[in-house]
């Protein structure tokens, strides 16, 4: 059975895609070319895996569940230095 699967090109390709899709974000980041401002994927990146969707899925997975609060009022009380800087620019 295992020998049959090993010689099945569809199965082998599916395994290869799964391995690429399971790369951690840090591994993905290594393919970022800052000079050219784009990802340079190495040989073997499977055609069926969209790099953008792959990265976005990873980000979505890392995102806290309840972050749909863009219209909430700004938090009151202590203001962090960057927020302070933003507010000064908006004055």
């Amino acid at each position: 059975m295992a020998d049959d699967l090993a010689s099945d090109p569809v199965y082998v390709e599916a395994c290869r895609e799964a391995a690429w899709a399971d790369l951690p974000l840090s591994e993905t980041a290594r393919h970022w070319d800052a000079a050219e401002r784009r990802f340079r994927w190495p040989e073997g990146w499977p055609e069926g895996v969209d790099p953008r969707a792959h990265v976005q899925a990873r980000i979505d997975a890392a995102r806290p569940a309840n972050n749909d609060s863009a219209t909430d009022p700004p938090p009151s009380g202590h203001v962090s230095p960057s927020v302070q800087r933003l507010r000064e620019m908006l004055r």
Partner: protein
Amino acid sequence: MTEKAPIDAALAAPRGRPARPPRRESNRNIVVPIDHHPGTVRGDGPSAQSARAAMTAMHDAWTRIAEAAADEGIDPPRLAKAAQSAMERALTAADRATSAIDGRVKELETAIAAAVQPRVDPTLAAEVRAYWREKGWANGMVEAMREDVRTASAILSAPGYLSGLDAERLDTMRRIAVDAHAREHQAALDEALHARRKVETASGRMIELVAPRLREWAEPESERLAKLEALGRG
């Protein structure tokens, strides 16, 4: 001397490209720079993870602001208010991550110092320095720094001249000792410093690029019209 007719003079004049009217940029066009993508943070340690979470918050807010801004149907002052709120949340997350990374940087610096400069008996340390001052650094100091942490500690815990080193060579010896005795801590420190730079750069750029738009959007159209009318009257 005959004077050229105006038409001839115009034709004789060197021709450049006709001046194009300047392109009118919409202030609703927000670009999210891809180099501030969370996927560009290197490493898997705690600092990289903190940075990645903050970068995700910023990237998410930035993208949503861009999407909302692209919708011309949204009232600008309302857009400005919502965008400011989203930015403040993201920037708060960025500052929290920076503080956490700063704490980690201090811990790692302390750990590196402890690994490279453990306590050595002061008399022995003085003898080690005197030995190398007499022998000369080129005669095996590098190997000694790598192999014997007491030698590294004795040399690094005193001014360089006591071991026959100038400031630059003392710094080189420090790097050799760190590489030999605290390589993992140094790698974690490099990762933390990279993560901090990424968060700091992204939050700074977000403020620089988006805040001016918020100002423009926050000004109601009626106010702009009033200013124009006042100019006409004045």
